[in-house]
């Protein structure tokens, strides 16, 4: 298959599937009542899904899933904990981002300086 055609086939199919996933329950529950137990379960979607998204990004190399060297991972984990604390206290995206990036750079510089 031609490369451009294949790319656009991916865009069209994945785009459609993504949209249908996003619309799915919004459309279904616009006519039906949301079951009580399900409504309770929905409250824990953000905590569970966002944690599952974040953790691999912090501890694994992008794409492969291979674990980074300890000297590369430890600053990322420490910076993520600092950012989590700031996010918990402030509810502020930019402060969380700044705290996380600054901690990471400082720790990386410290590790490079130690050798």
């Amino acid at each position, binding site marked *: 298959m031609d490369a451009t055609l294949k790319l656009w086939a991916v865009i069209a199919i994945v785009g459609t599937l993504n949209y249908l996933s996003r619309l799915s329950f919004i459309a279904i529950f616009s006519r039906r009542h949301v079951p009580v137990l399900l409504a309770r379960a929905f409250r824990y979607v953000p905590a569970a899904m966002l944690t599952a998204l974040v953790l*691999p990004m912090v501890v694994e190399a992008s794409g492969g899933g291979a674990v980074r060297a300890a000297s590369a991972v430890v600053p990322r984990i420490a910076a993520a904990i600092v950012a989590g604390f700031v996010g918990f206290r402030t509810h502020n995206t930019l402060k969380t981002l700044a705290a996380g990036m600054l901690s990471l750079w400082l720790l990386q510089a410290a590790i490079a300086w130690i050798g």
Partner: protein
Amino acid sequence: MTAARDFREGFVGMIPVCIGTAPFALVCGVGAAAAGASWWSALGMSAIMFSGAAQILAVQLLAAGAPLAVIVLTCFVAGLRFLMYSAAMAPYLRPLPQRWQQGLAFLLTDQAFAAGVRHFGAGHPPRQAARHYLGAGIALWSSWQVMNLAGYFVGNLIPATWSLDFAVPLCFIALVAPQFRAMPSIVAAVISGFAVLALAGLPMKLNLIAAGTLGIVAGTVADLAKERWTRR
């Protein structure tokens, strides 16, 4: 005029989050350029798929020469979390006209979901919260396109030592950290976190959806147990 104000407040309120997702968008744009896509194909991908995770996977698999069916299936599985977001947003969007539901659904992303749940959950009238959400979603969508193109054209100039990719988990941490006030949410996060790392060997990012499901079940059980405990 209040309609315009709701929209504007949603839009402006999302700008810090857009700055947070900008590095993610840059990474996607760099990936598309590296895979040899034309700039308008890269734009089509970010505008229509509108999902960083799916875009990165698609580009990696295309470059590796994977069959169309594999690419589509992998991206679909990574996007299964949208089903959960859709389910969680459904009760809030229920009072709105169908056309609004269909429009707002397109803008449902991780960031829009976290902001939307918080704003709708704060008890604003549905119409007002919907306009706020529309503003927030359009801010995210438009900045996503601009930064994807920026990444496509000039992203390779950013030095690797800046560790810009770390901004991606940080913007998710900013979304999830405020959740850690309720005990069942903490249980959900801890179980999900253990599971996603323990199941990292699963193909097609299935560990994501499996861990998410386990975490949601754990959080719900913890919630029910807590309720039973306090009722005694």
